């Protein structure tokens, strides 16, 4: 105690990449993940569940991001996932239109 510095991120850019990837990227993944589920399954139940599962998943992603060696790669992974889930949302809307 305190944490051993040799295991921590020292580069400011990497630190910025990880914090932003975890906070914003993690948020995008969480939201689109729930929307993808909502577009295919019981919409109302998924939406109301997301008000608590969303925050748990978001917090978890935020933690996981810091385990990565490269924060920019995590940004890449999160953007890919977001795009994938977004695609599933659009497909879902085609098959199960809401309005």
């Amino acid at each position: 105690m305190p944490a051993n510095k040799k295991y921590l991120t020292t580069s400011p850019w990497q630190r910025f990449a990880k914090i932003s990837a975890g906070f914003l990227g993690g948020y995008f993944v969480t939201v689109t993940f729930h929307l993808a589920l909502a577009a295919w399954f019981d919409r109302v139940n998924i939406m109301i569940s997301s008000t608590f599962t969303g925050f748990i998943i978001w917090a978890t992603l935020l933690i996981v991001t810091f385990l990565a060696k490269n924060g920019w790669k995590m940004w890449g992974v999160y953007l890919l996932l977001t795009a994938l889930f977004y695609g599933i949302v659009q497909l879902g809307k085609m098959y199960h239109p809401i309005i």
Partner: protein
Amino acid sequence: MNIRSYNIFFHLHTVSGIIISAALFVIFFAGSFSFFRDEIANWQKNESVSAIETGVTTNFDTVIDSLQKNYSLYGRDIEIAKHYNERRLDINLSATKDTLAKEEDKAGTFFYLDTKTFKNFTYEQSYTLGEFLYRLHFFAQIQYPFGYYLSGFVAFFFLFAIITGVLIHWDKIVSNFYVFRPKAKLKTIWTDAHTALGVIGLPFQFIYAVTGTFFMLSLLMAAPSVALLYDGDQQKLYEDLEYFDKPVTLLQQPLSDVPSVEKYITATKQQWEGFNVSHVHLYNFGDESMQIAVEGELDRSEKFTGNGKIIYQATDGKIVYQKNPFTDISYLDVVKNLMYRLHYGDYSGFSLRVISFILGLISCFVIISGVLIWLVARDKKNIPLKKRKFNAALVNIYLGICLTMYPITAASFIAVKLVNPASQAFIYQFYFIGWLLLAIAFTLKKNLYFTNKYTLLLGSIIGFLVPIANGLASGNWFWLTYKNENFQLFFIDVFWIILATSTLLITFKIKRKPA
């Protein structure tokens, strides 16, 4: 767990914890008192109601008669609701939809109605210390929406800190739980206490982190769906989540005789046994199209989620909509209800709220001990003196702010009894200025031991004076309120005696220890 992950989690826990610590302490301290928001409000106003929430029991026709004395009600939507276990009802009048109405009726209004005296009170006139502490626990005193978002993100990072904390301790979570070395050096004591109490409070704290984030930030999860799923149709989302009734158009045909609302309330209660009415909406009052929506819930000891609703056409009593609290409970209802019940701790009588209060204070202790570990762990020879001085100064200020909450809260209970009526402005000034002065005074002393011991001692002494001040100011001595079965008034007095005694005993135990 590999050593790299461990160190990363450790660092995340430390940094997130230290950033939110002071704000989180304020939330937990004020939040713990908020479990008794209604009792504090009633105690301050010397008004006692039944200790267990029973919904609105006043005759609705009497309420409407009293409203009609001051307002022309035709064409308005009227909401009569009971949010808190107090004598006062919330009255919400919309502007009338009658296009021919007088200008003064084309404005909506909100006020409280005392169900005993039938006097009206504005929000400010109804303000109490209970409301103040309740609002303080989500920083509502900071301009909207900043306070709400601030408290929301503090709750979110609290969740983050809880998860990382569990990860750090995971490997030794069982064995470390039983370790307590009160005779060891300070750092060990703080660490043992932080771990053991953190684990005891874990389910409680996890629930409050999640539900607290839900209250303040659920918009972050719901809002994107409007754009991405509903193509901008916000109304549809609200309908899906059952957040409002379809508006009823006014027919501009005034009824010569407005039907009794109470009749419909009685009918509803007869239909569903044990149903407590919490909200009544009267749409298009006094018009042919008038509808009466009765909402409420079953007694929680009967059914945990039992919210029901029925909408009558006022003229002929036809049921327009019905949601049976016994049979029509959906997953949506359960989640919405669960978030509130878990956070308010109001589903199991007084005992659960008392336990929640204690767990809330334990969480305060976990926060403070965490900050102290942070300080002590960095108070080493190999750390530059400048940094050590900065750390010490920071913790000194943190403790000065956090621990003085106890004496100033106790003093506020006395202040609202001596200054009668205590206005919102008075409570703000007394609490915030008093808090600031105390915090500065203790910070200037630059002695953590002193701050800890004397804030507790000061709080205890003032705490003992609370029931005395109440007795002198109102004549409601606690033995009299006990005899008269005014349970809420009795509870707050006794609550302070017990709390002050406990903290006084702790004060005697606090001894200066070499680091």
